[in-house]
């Protein structure tokens, strides 16, 4: 039932002609990861890590050049439908090149950028869409949670992973479990700075993903400002942010540590050493401010490898799971 509703909600985002092709091909939401639309180019779907297209006859095919070619009209209709015919309501998000829609799905946009000075004022003639479908995996952090707790307290934790290994999905479930409380740990007030609307997937201010009952979300807010705003206004016990790495992030993170809050964050990287080479995060790692590191990587054998290290780099836990 839930899956059928998800599938219908995805269909409702698409132009009517593409929707008909999807219905003929019987594409279901559980398999879909991405829908890529480029004007004049074939429709491309990413399902379970593989690329497919839908032919004019509504058949799923691996031959991409046989796929239905997207027209400008279809792309415009999809864009309008995605935004509930209210593109202006997403003005600020669109300047950053994406918008988050009902269901927490994220739509990447590309086209002609209009600038005023060095500021992006809007995107016009949008000709490229990347619909990234949000798949919340409740319980994906169950195995690592016991290793993130020490004397009933959550450790400062950094999740390190290359793109596409599921660090945001893992962080989302950790936030939910910390907020609701999990075995050996009572619920904590969590403040989330969701700069790119990926964690909560807010639609008109309401989180579309379950981040727990004690979680407050600052949506579309720059991390460095958001962390300080949360500290001043919402008294969080734990602060969670996605994708550290900007020049201002290090300073804001140090402030979080000084205020006695616990921090959970993610960063792009392949290992602890890799992160220590990043200029802005070097001080944090060298001073051993993070007490736990979760390193995610692709594994040839099973899909994803999850390792948990302590501040000294001692391996505490390792797990291999399917992606």
């Amino acid at each position: 039932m839930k899956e059928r509703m998800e599938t219908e909600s995805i269909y409702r985002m698409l132009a009517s002609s593409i929707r008909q092709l999807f219905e003929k091909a019987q594409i279901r939401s559980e398999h879909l990861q991405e829908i890529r639309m480029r004007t004049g180019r074939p429709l491309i779907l990413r399902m379970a890590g593989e690329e497919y297209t839908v032919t004019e006859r509504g058949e799923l095919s691996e031959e991409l050049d046989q796929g239905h070619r997207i027209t400008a009209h279809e792309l415009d209709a999809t864009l309008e439908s995605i935004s509930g015919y209210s593109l202006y309501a997403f003005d600020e998000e669109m300047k950053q090149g994406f918008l988050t829609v009902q269901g927490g799905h994220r739509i990447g946009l590309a086209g002609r950028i209009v600038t005023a000075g060095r500021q992006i004022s809007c995107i016009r003639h949008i000709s490229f869409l990347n619909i990234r479908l949000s798949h919340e995996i409740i319980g994906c952090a169950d195995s690592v949670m016991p290793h993130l707790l020490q004397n009933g307290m959550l450790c400062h934790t950094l999740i390190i992973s290359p793109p596409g290994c599921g660090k945001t999905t893992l962080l989302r479930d950790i936030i939910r479990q910390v907020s609701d409380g999990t075995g050996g740990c009572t619920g904590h007030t969590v403040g989330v700075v969701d700069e790119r609307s990926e964690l909560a997937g807010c639609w008109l201010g309401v989180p579309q993903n379950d981040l727990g009952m004690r979680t407050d979300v600052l949506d579309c807010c720059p991390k460095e400002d958001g962390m300080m705003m949360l500290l001043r206004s919402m008294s969080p016990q734990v602060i969670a942010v996605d994708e550290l790495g900007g020049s201002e992030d290090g300073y804001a993170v140090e402030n979080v540590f000084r205020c006695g809050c616990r921090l959970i964050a993610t960063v792009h990287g392949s290992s602890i050493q890799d992160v220590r080479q990043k200029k802005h995060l070097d001080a944090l790692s060298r001073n051993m401010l993070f007490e736990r590191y979760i390193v995610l990587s692709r594994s040839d054998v099973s899909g994803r490898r999850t390792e948990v290290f302590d501040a000294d780099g001692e391996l505490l836990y390792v797990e291999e799971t399917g992606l």
Partner: protein
Amino acid sequence: MQIGIKLAGCFCIIAAGWMTGWELERRLRQRWMFLKEMQELFLYLEKEMTYHRTTVETALREAAGNCATVLRDLLLTAADQVEQRRGELFRDIWEDAVRQTIPGSLLQQDQHDTVCEAAAALCGTDTVMQRTMLVKYAERFDEMSRQESQNCQEKGKLYRKLSTAAGVFIVIVLI
């Protein structure tokens, strides 16, 4: 008895003439009120859309609550179709709603075309451009409603006088 019947007949003919004039004037007044409401709608939407960032569906429903003419039906029909999200362009949704709700006799062709074209101001990617278009359409409908107001006063009186005179003329001819 005969005189009584004749007087009643005369009264009916004159009343019918007067009513025809009144009906013609009422149509002119409806057109004027519709265009006036369109102008107010665009001023309202400019605030709701570009400042408050209200979604188009909510903004149309809220605006419909303040309308007394067929504009109310137009806005509600468009809002319902937006809610259904059938994967069409907003322009097509708006034109379809105009076709369904606005009687052919209400507007002149150029006014009807302007109402259809106004869809471009309600759904766009560029908020700066959208604000400009909303203001421009508000000005355009203001101009149209002024003309119609003048039209309504001038032609309305004329229609009433002419139709009453026609009634009187028929009575005289019959007598």
